[in-house]
């Protein structure tokens, strides 16, 4: 993958040199040869457009087809390769399994149990729900399962995030994730801006209003150019936003799901800086549970089954 990246970079650099060489041999006739169509029919169309141009429309351009192969395609390919590289980096950064003391997991499990009872209490008859409701509300409010530190203090006293290894780990994790996003994007943006500044790459096949000019023609200071023309830097921005479906196709959903589940499980152990204290959360959950209304799935079950299958 790195080899492909370097190769595409070298190709583009070579082409940049060619363009510079051509600009040095600047002649008005060469410009004409590049932008004015040879075909008489296209010329007629150009005149027609120019006629309308007086009423506000832009002049039709003809692009060198080599732009597609040496600018549009390399930018797209590099963006996809960088996306793949970023995915690999993120996978490796997230591989570390979060661990903690067992009593911290127990604390999280009781919070989960309360939420499960609120959500799935409909599966129980009223008496069973009420017994659990009373017991759990009491236990959570008393703080019986709040994790204690080895010294016996409550674990959730707010400490200095820079001295707590768990918190600094969480902060480093966030910082690494952000850097893995920002650094490649900054590098590619520099690359596109440096080599392809002011390039017009393609024309969209559908009409657009003048509002799209800012979005699609970044780096081109022409007031009259049709909004359908797309500049290199704009193509970069469009690729940043629009490549997610391609990544989904490349990486498949199963691994993403598996990673997502793993992260979700690990998230329970992470204590993010500034997160509310566990005993406070438990008391809130105890209140939520105490006022939860019970509605049983067994109400009118006979009628439901008869209606479903009879």
């Amino acid at each position, binding site marked *: 993958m790195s080899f492909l990246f370097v190769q595409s970079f070298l190709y583009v650099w070579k082409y940049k040199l060619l363009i510079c060489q051509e600009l040095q041999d600047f002649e008005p006739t060469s410009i004409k040869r590049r932008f004015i169509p040879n075909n008489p029919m296209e010329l007629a169309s150009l005149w027609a457009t120019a006629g309308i141009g007086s009423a506000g429309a832009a002049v039709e351009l003809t692009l060198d087809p080599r732009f597609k192969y040496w600018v549009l395609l390399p930018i797209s390919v590099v963006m996809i390769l960088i996306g793949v590289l970023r995915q690999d980096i993120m996978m490796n950064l997230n591989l570390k*399994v*979060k*661990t*903690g*003391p*067992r009593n911290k*997991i*127990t604390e999280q*499990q*009781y919070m*989960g*149990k309360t939420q*499960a*009872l609120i*959500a*799935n*209490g*409909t*599966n*129980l*008859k009223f008496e*069973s729900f009420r017994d*659990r409701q009373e017991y759990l509300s009491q236990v959570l409010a008393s703080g019986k399962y709040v994790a204690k530190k080895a010294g016996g203090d409550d674990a959730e006293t707010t400490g200095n995030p820079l001295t707590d290894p768990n918190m600094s780990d969480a902060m480093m994790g966030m910082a690494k994730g952000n850097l893995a996003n920002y650094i490649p994007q900054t590098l590619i943006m520099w690359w596109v801006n440096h080599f392809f500044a002011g390039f017009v790459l393609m024309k969209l096949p559908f009409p657009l209003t003048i509002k799209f000019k800012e979005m699609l023609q970044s780096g081109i200071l022409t007031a009259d150019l049709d909004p359908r023309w797309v500049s290199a830097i704009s193509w970069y921005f469009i690729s940043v936003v629009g490549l997610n479906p391609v990544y989904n196709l490349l990486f*498949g959903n*199963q*691994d993403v799901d*598996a990673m997502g589940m793993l992260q979700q*499980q*690990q998230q*329970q*152990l992470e204590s993010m800086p500034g997160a509310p204290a566990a005993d406070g959360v438990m008391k809130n959950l105890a209140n939520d549970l105490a006022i939860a209304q019970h509605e049983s*799935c*067994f109400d009118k*079950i*006979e009628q*439901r*089954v*008869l209606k*479903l*299958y*009879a």
Partner: protein
Amino acid sequence: MEALRKRFLTIYETKFFSIAPPNEIVELYNELKAYLKVVDPALSQTDYMSLMHMLFDLCIYNGKDIEAQVIYKTLEDRFGDNSPYLHVMQATMMQVNENDVTAEKYLQELLDRVLEYDTDILDYLLVSKKLLSIRKRSLSREKYISELLNLSEKFPLDGETWTALATEYLEAGQLDRAAFCLEEVLCIAPFNYICFAQLGEVLYYKALRDKKGKKDVLQDSLNNFLRSVELSETYLKGWAFVAKITGILDGKKALHSLAKKKLEEINQNSDSHDHMIAKIILDKL
């Protein structure tokens, strides 16, 4: 290939191989081994590792100790030895190569010295369950239940522990406690129709045993069976108990005939096992 992959992954997720009859275990072992030899391009790395784990268990069941050791070493090379499943596999290999006492000692030390202070969400639980499964033979029922209760207090969201407790209480004849444990499972897994049926069954036995409030308990039992068949239309056990209980309770003729109709359908359309059982139940009704 896709159908095979899905089948193996479903068997792994449901752990069906742990309760399958011996001939099916041998068949599954051979099929899985052949499948893993042919490289399936659509099999993700995670799924491949899961199937390797299942192959390890099947090797143990089939007495292929050397092959199991090779799989264990392969997974150890890939993940290192500090991994939840590898702790359990190592204990299994100790049971195979040495004895239960060594494995028990290893797991107990791991729990006390390491996992109590530094564990992920799976490790402590898996190692504790493995330790309990080894100890089960040497512990009395009371002691075993007490160990299970300790574990369920530490991990109240683990359905397996609650199910094991329910089974123990049921065998000990403590039906109310068994029902309580099954209700805990239903709070964790709200669409578990098998658990609804198990709860209904426990309540049915309670109604047969205790004469006091028999009708109410039978109604509760019927409700649970109805919920199980609402979730799974072809669940034989659910319909069988619906037919039985509606035959006892008054004013349930419509449900009784519906249950009989469904049993007839299962008798006609299901596989040989369900067909045979449905036929016997229909004859008895």
